[in-house]
């Protein structure tokens, strides 16, 4: 029980009349890397955005580190939590976006230390030490004072990973982190992610990179039409998928 980091139960979400998530349940334990694959429009991205409450869920529940995300129990009903509490919950969850979303008016280092200094209240010198160490870990020790506009896409995404790691989150979410990158720089981002996975970071990765899923994932889940339809080890997935939809999907993209 204690080593469950993320627990999602019967998550439903609609945009207007379009039901995007039709009851998704998933559990991720400490140190696990889970890859979510599936065709576009299957709800992968929506699901991962629900985990840090960038999207509000309509029903079901999501817990991270034992805390209910985005809602609190009141008289047996779930009501949306206060902004301050939601913000606090998000400090336990690192998010890496498809389009990096670095702060363009801040240098690489300033991007990384923004949350430690201005959200967690870490003393600046300490945060700078941490920030430089993290930028070193993603291979960008020499780009500390560079603004995002002067970095390549791969470098920007690695800064974004360092920024998310800076809060020491219990869970890292990656929303198609390489989909907006030029092919020649995808490798550098994936190798940083593989290194994180190997170091025991708990990660949920929405990805189309089957090579990464095969190499780094402990578990792969397939989503289709708002549901988790198949779940298993990478070996199971890439050698003997059982579900017809999974076979179709994999045959198309492999």
């Amino acid at each position, binding site marked *: 029980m204690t080593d469950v980091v993320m627990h999602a139960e019967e998550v439903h979400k609609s945009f207007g009349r379009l039901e995007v998530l039709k009851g998704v349940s998933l559990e991720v334990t400490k140190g696990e890397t889970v890859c979510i694959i599936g065709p576009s429009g299957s709800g992968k991205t929506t699901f991962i955005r629900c985990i840090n409450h960038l999207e509000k869920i309509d029903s079901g529940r999501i817990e991270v580190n034992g805390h209910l995300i985005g809602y609190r129990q009141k008289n047996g009903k779930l009501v949306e939590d206060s902004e301050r509490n939601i913000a606090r919950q998000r400090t336990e*969850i690192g998010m890496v976006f498809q389009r990096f979303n670095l702060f363009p008016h801040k240098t690489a280092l300033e991007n990384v230390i923004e949350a430690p200094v201005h959200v967690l209240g870490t003393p600046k010198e300490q945060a700078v030490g941490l920030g430089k160490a993290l930028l070193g870990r993603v291979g960008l020790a020499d780009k500390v004072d560079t603004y*995002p*506009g002067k970095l390549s896409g791969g470098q920007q995404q690695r800064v974004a990973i360092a920024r998310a790691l*800076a809060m020491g989150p219990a869970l890292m979410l990656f929303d198609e982190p390489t989909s907006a990158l030029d092919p020649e720089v995808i490798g550098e981002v994936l190798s940083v992610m593989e290194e994180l996975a190997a170091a025991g970071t708990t990660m949920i990765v929405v990805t189309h990179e089957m090579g990464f899923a095969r190499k780094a994932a402990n578990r792969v889940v397939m989503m289709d039409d708002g549901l988790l339809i198949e779940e298993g080890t990478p070996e199971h997935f890439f050698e003997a998928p059982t579900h017809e939809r999974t076979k179709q999907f994999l045959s198309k993209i492999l």
Partner: protein
Amino acid sequence: MHGLVAVDLHVIWQQVFHPNNVFLRTLWATVYISVVSQAAGVVLGLLAALARMSRFAPLRWISGVYVWIFRGTPLLVQIFYVYFAFSWPTLNFGFWTVPDAAIAGIVALSINEGAYMREIIRAGIDSVDRGQMEAAKSIGMTYGKAMRRIILPQAARVIVPPLGNEFNNMMKNTSLVYTIGVFEMFAYAEQNYSQFFIADYFLAIAVWYLILTTVWTFIQAWIERRLSESERGDELSFRERLELSWNPMAAWGRGGLNR
């Protein structure tokens, strides 16, 4: 007394290069009325812009009505109404007295300016990519903190150029408060004209308005340069190029000329 081209150089020379104390006080009035009104206008505009984007419908309506009224009626009418409909105190800071009319003028100019600033600030905030707010929230920021630290600093780059225009207009529009009896630069010229019938007093203050707006142009350019710091690459700044032009050796300190 004057020919067709009636320029009394003496008056202009006096007013521009040897301004007397009375004139300097009116110049100061013009400066402080425009600076305070613009600053308050920006604050009002920001509040109205945030209200316009609020999830709470009544706030959006209030913001809409505010802009509708104050952009849709003449500034002069607003100034008269604000001055005559309410009673305003005279503020005395000891060394500096702000008369009631000046306060009414500042209030009217601020409220009017806020209505224009709202649209400018909203356009600035809209210009910031939506992903920025999401990224800020993901690292644990509340809406307010994300606005202050992430969104507004980026919006500023879009806001400052039109804000500069607004302030330029503001400095000239302050002359309207002469009509409710504020003794500012235009009032000074008008008073001297009606005493001596020398139109060059107007020309002299025109020179002063031009000096004020020109100084502001330089300040604005400086602010815009500061704000675009993150976009500048390794190319040399204007000042560095200037330094290089008379001291080529300075380049060595930066790693040579061919960087």
